[in-house]
């Protein structure tokens, strides 16, 4: 079996599989909508990485976390 034959078979496995999907179409639609909501809406607008957003270098990040850890904390209702 030559290489192009293997790649051809792999291509057709996926191509025919996607082409002949029934319930799979609905599931792929759900997956794509879900991924859009997670990675575009949630990640971009609501879930920026706190340390990445506020600090440029690892030294700045570690200084900030060290400060956070070593500042005495009190809950507002303590």
């Amino acid at each position, binding site marked *: 079996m030559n290489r192009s034959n293997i790649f051809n*078979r792999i291509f*057709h*496995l*996926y191509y*025919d*599989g*996607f082409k002949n999907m029934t*319930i*799979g179409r*609905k*599931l*792929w639609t*759900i*997956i794509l909508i*879900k*991924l859009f*909501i*997670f990675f575009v809406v*949630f*990640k971009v607008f*609501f*879930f*920026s*990485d*706190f*340390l*990445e957003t506020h600090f440029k270098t*690892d030294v700045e*990040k*570690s200084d900030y*976390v*060290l400060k*956070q*850890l*070593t*500042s*005495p*904390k*009190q*809950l*507002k*209702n*303590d």
Partner: protein
Amino acid sequence: MIEHIDLSLINWSRAQFALTAMYHWLFVPLTLGLAFIVAIMETIYVRTGDVEWKKITKFWMILFGINFAIGVSTGIILEFEFGTNWSNYSWFVGDIFGAPLAIEGIMAFFMESTFIAVMFFGWNKVSKKFHLLSSWLTAFGANLSALWILVANGWMQYPVGMQFNPDTARNEMMNFWDVIFSPIGINKFLHTITSAYVLSAIFVVGISAWFLIRKRHILFSKRSIIVASVFGLVSSLYLVWSGDGSAYQVAQKQPMKLAAMEGLYNGQKSAGIIVFGVLNPEKEYTNDEEPHLFKMEIPKLLSFLGYRNADAFVPGIKDIIEGGYEYLDENGKKQSAISTDEKIERGKIALASLAKYKEAKDAGNDSLKIAHRKTLEENFQYFGYGFLNDPKSIVPNIPLVFYSFHIMVALAFWFILIFVLALYFVYKDQIVTKKWFLRLAFLTIPLAYIAQQCGWIVAEVGRQPWVIQDIMPTVAAVSQIDTRAVQITFFLFLIVFTGLLIAEISIMSKQIKTGPKDS
């Protein structure tokens, strides 16, 4: 200067994480177990050549696919939350969490996505044996993915194999194998995946019972019940064994969680395990009220299960807070437990040493740096206690942990009964006529999900206030962000995940109603 932290920020951040994790875990266990059940069914098909088994395999494979597709990536939200809501924690755990999650991501992508494609698209395109191999590799791939995330969770319950670097404020992995083979991590993995197998078996038995109630697909249903019940029964027995292993580890490493699971306020020698009980809502560890309004217990069993000695002393909540009881450490040496007040004091010494280490480093004073680092390392095992001000804050929500634990255990034995009865009725060829049993089997499906959620409540609520046991409490882990932002995303998640759940139930119900098709 004292920094004030809004308690509602911590509570909303915890609630959001709990909501996401619980919804995520509605999808995962069925994927883990159904993959193996499908692989077993296909193995029988390949060995016998009986096309009925191919029909059976394809039907459950479609339900597996629906569940996989709806559930996939729901866990990614948890990683978003680490970076946004729990940034101190994310930085602090460093590469210990990063390595297992990276391995999980790579393995999940390459193993699952490649072989799932062959599973669904490969019928009549690849050989029977290669298709079967793909089904098994999908099952192993899914379960191996779970290994890495559960190892990471196990590390949070019992942090090992790392060293804290005060220069970077990160924990650095010193021994990968200590992290992977942590006794808590391994037990957690085995107990969690076997519980997922039991859920999946209950799902298959329940749906098959539904077909039998409607007198549809009789042979299909009987065969599905046999495979699922045998798989479920074997898994259940292993689940009980791994549950015992988990409880033993909890007794050694997280005694407060064990005390909460049993509502044990005052330690006892020869402590019994409560089979059924009602907590006294008036009970506090500081008063003399009875902890339970009613209880049925098996004498000495808690001591035996927790310490492999029926007469061993099991510390209660009061003992753990006040200290003074004797226990055996990891090297088998007898030690006297120190009080939580003392742990708080040593935690505050660790925190102060860390601050002074930083000052000495900035001032270029090496001898002071070495001295403060030594003090930090001597007290690091209590580092997290330094953030606490009241010994009571190490007590988790007792009713939630107690009832969740007992519901989980009771349901595990209920599932065993269902599997045994199912096999008995199939063996006697009476299953079609036992309508009461078929209805019970169908109604047990949601109970399997309740048992799963209860298990996670015990594991996670039972270790509060810790994000990392004894090292970091939630108050130190949370990001200083606007509480309203957390509230908004909480409700956004609630809407999206509820939508996914509705989609899952409706697509699956439609597929089940359609039933298996001749291939």
